[in-house]
């Protein structure tokens, strides 16, 4: 158990670092000023490798010190194109991209998240965010 206390102390240190870096306008788990990524994580997504994709995105964003929030969501209804992710850049409409393996995820981060350039594989749909569907 003493390990856990030490871990939580380390977490506290990391929080202070992050707080200095992220401009938190309000206490929120979905801040509008950060890149938001949702990974579809239902049976269809998991079986297609959505967990590996999500872990890869998290590691890559962490390595490049890009501030973002990465969350999971249920089946988006595009089971043929799993793993599927939804990316929302600050101030932009959400974009859904299908067949996101780790290679595609890397391309999305380099092109869309860092430079705002659209990539192939976008699933065209008129909607707000997947949670309101």
């Amino acid at each position, binding site marked *: 158990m003493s390990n856990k206390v030490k871990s939580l102390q380390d*977490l506290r240190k990391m929080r202070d670092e992050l707080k200095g870096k992220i401009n938190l306008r309000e206490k929120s788990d*979905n801040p509008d000023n950060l890149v938001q990524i949702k990974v579809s994580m239902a049976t269809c997504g998991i079986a297609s490798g959505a967990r590996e994709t999500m872990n890869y995105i*998290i*590691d890559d964003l962490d390595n490049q010190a890009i501030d*973002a929030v990465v*969350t*999971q969501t249920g089946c988006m209804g595009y089971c043929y194109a799993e793993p599927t992710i939804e990316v929302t850049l600050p101030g932009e409409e959400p974009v859904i991209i299908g067949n996101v393996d780790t290679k595609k995820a890397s391309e999305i981060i380099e092109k869309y998240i860092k430079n705002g350039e659209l990539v192939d594989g976008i699933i065209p749909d008129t909607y707000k965010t997947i949670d309101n569907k």
Partner: protein
Amino acid sequence: MKDLSMHILDIVENSVKAGATQVVVDLNYHDDVLEMTIRDNGCGMDTETVKKVLDPYSTSRTTRKVGLGLPFLKMNAEQTGGAVQVESEPGRGTLVSATFVTTHIDCVPQGDIPATLALLITGHPDINFRIRIAKSTGSFEISSEEIKEVLDGVPVSHPRVNVFIRNMLKEEI
């Protein structure tokens, strides 16, 4: 499902869809048996639905006619000599419990359990997870609430937080 950790991810998604705010994931290792229990306070199911959930041709979804999460879990548990149990009550929540005989030749690998549990906590910021792991060498418990309290407003879904939790769980499991 290729490994046991994926089942955890998959079954918890049912709790999320049931509107749960609390999900308890228990992993009990004793001898060669792993007992995995997922308990939520979601909307629950009536007796009739509970009877049908293990049937692959039954689903609450309207977009298609199959629901494979629980049937896959049942198949993977039963092929090791284990079993799956589902208990539920409308308005109270649901409990899914699966046992696996881990030494059985047909038992799928455990997979990356620390990474999976970290994804649950950071992937669902609005749900309070409580993770309990009990082994013969000791036990470990952590909750989303404890982590969020320390974070004090920094989003739990930030990539750095996920990597931190993953490494912490790796040391404990």
